[in-house]
């Protein structure tokens, strides 16, 4: 029965972009896409990672 597992609520991204997010413990759904089509790109994920990294030390100050 060719019915896929998973739903289409999910955000648009390629498998590799998802992997990058997973590898950095990031929920890809939290990443804001810059592309108007709503696609999350590798760059979006890296930007999100950097923003998070920069945020943490600031809070500690």
């Amino acid at each position, binding site marked *: 029965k060719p019915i896929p597992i998973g739903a*289409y609520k999910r955000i648009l991204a390629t498998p590799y972009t998802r992997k990058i997010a*997973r590898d950095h413990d990031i929920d890809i759904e939290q990443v804001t896409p810059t592309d108007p089509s709503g696609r999350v790109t590798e760059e979006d994920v890296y930007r999100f990672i950097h923003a998070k990294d920069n945020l943490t030390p600031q809070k500690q100050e």
Partner: protein
Amino acid sequence: MVVGDFPIEVDTLVVGAGPGGYVAAIRAAQLGQKVTIVEKGSLGGVCLNVGCIPSKALIQAGHLTQHAQGHEEIGITTKGVSVDFAKVQEWKGTVVNKLTSGVEGLLKGNKVDIVKGEVYFVNDHTAKVMDEKNSQTYTFNNCIIATGSRPIEIPGFKYSDRVLDSTGALSLKEVPKKMVVIGGGYIGTELGSSYANFGTEIVILEGTKDILGGFEKQMTQLVKKNLKGKGATIVTEAMAKGVEETKNGVKVTYEAKGKEEVVEADYVLVTVGRRPNTDELGLEQAGIELTDRGLIKIDKQCRTNVKNIYAIGDIVPGLPLAHKASYEGKIAAEAISGEKSEIDYIGIPSVVFSNPELASVGYTEASAKEAGIDVKVGRFPFAANGRALSLNNTDGFMKLITRKEDGLVIGAQIAGANASDMISELALAVEAGMTAEDIALTIHPHPSLGEIAMEAAEVALGKPIHVM
């Protein structure tokens, strides 16, 4: 027989060397784990030995037999086609051997220890491996179970020389004159079609309303037309009751439309489903939980409820297909190495090597509607494609399923020549979240079957070039 031996300590233990297990073992070894794989039968599992590969070899031999008859409609004729079925089987054997010895080489090359024997769990870190003579205890840090499945036997049809399971049907020594196939799933349909191509008269008895359940009527229709053209009979909503073995064949009794019928044939092939090999493993001693249907419960990393034990392939929920087993094998191996890999398949392709081939990935029109997704479907016939015409092979169509709001490709179905090759582009599109525009704007070579995807995308977008 040595019992109560000194346990051998291993790092990662893989149980079963089918497409799930051997792929898991190789990936685990590549990631630095010390891997031991135990197989009670033959390396390569069902798939390489008595499943995917030998069936596809036989199917191809059937096609080549058909081609050997020439194509009168285009002016190519032959006389006296003869099939030396023993030689076909021998060739099939060499194909299987190349792949299984390839697997052996790959395992060894990746420094995986190969052990022959049957695994039985003692607890969540210990298993026994038994062969005819010995029993050896192993302790493991992590374990991946990949013991696969076996054919179901139905009441009244005990397997024998004449009552065949798929393995029996794959290793016949002769082309039967007539064969009854009970169960028109993909395995029964593929094997039935293959023998039909060799000239066997096929009778398919299917319990439900249609063969190839899960595929759309428009698709199964093409397969049935083709089968019937080769003299096959397809009886749906037929209930197989029993079989009587005669001197040179079988008498199969079934019920259809409230009437009992008898059909005689050389053989009867029973392909009504497969059962997971989870019942004779001592899983309860390791504390592993099963579903009602005897499948092992796993999480997104293929981990069972016991945290150092993983399970993959036909013994876990989902489609019992080789590529799913291999995919899960990689995930489990990576999870053990601490990678964050997760099962993430929105689209597992499934293919039937029938005539014509069928392939599907992601949502169908019906399953999308069920899921409440508004879709726009792009349908394009092979008959309007230049390559299909020049191949003299125009039976079929593609349906591209896109989400209405944004054109996202959420599925595709193909019936037609080389559907098994064509589905990969669509699988990539579904996985990567491509839109119909992405496919339409990609230049596809002319003339090629790939253009069908481009055209189907344009149909979905409302501006097709090659259909009205």
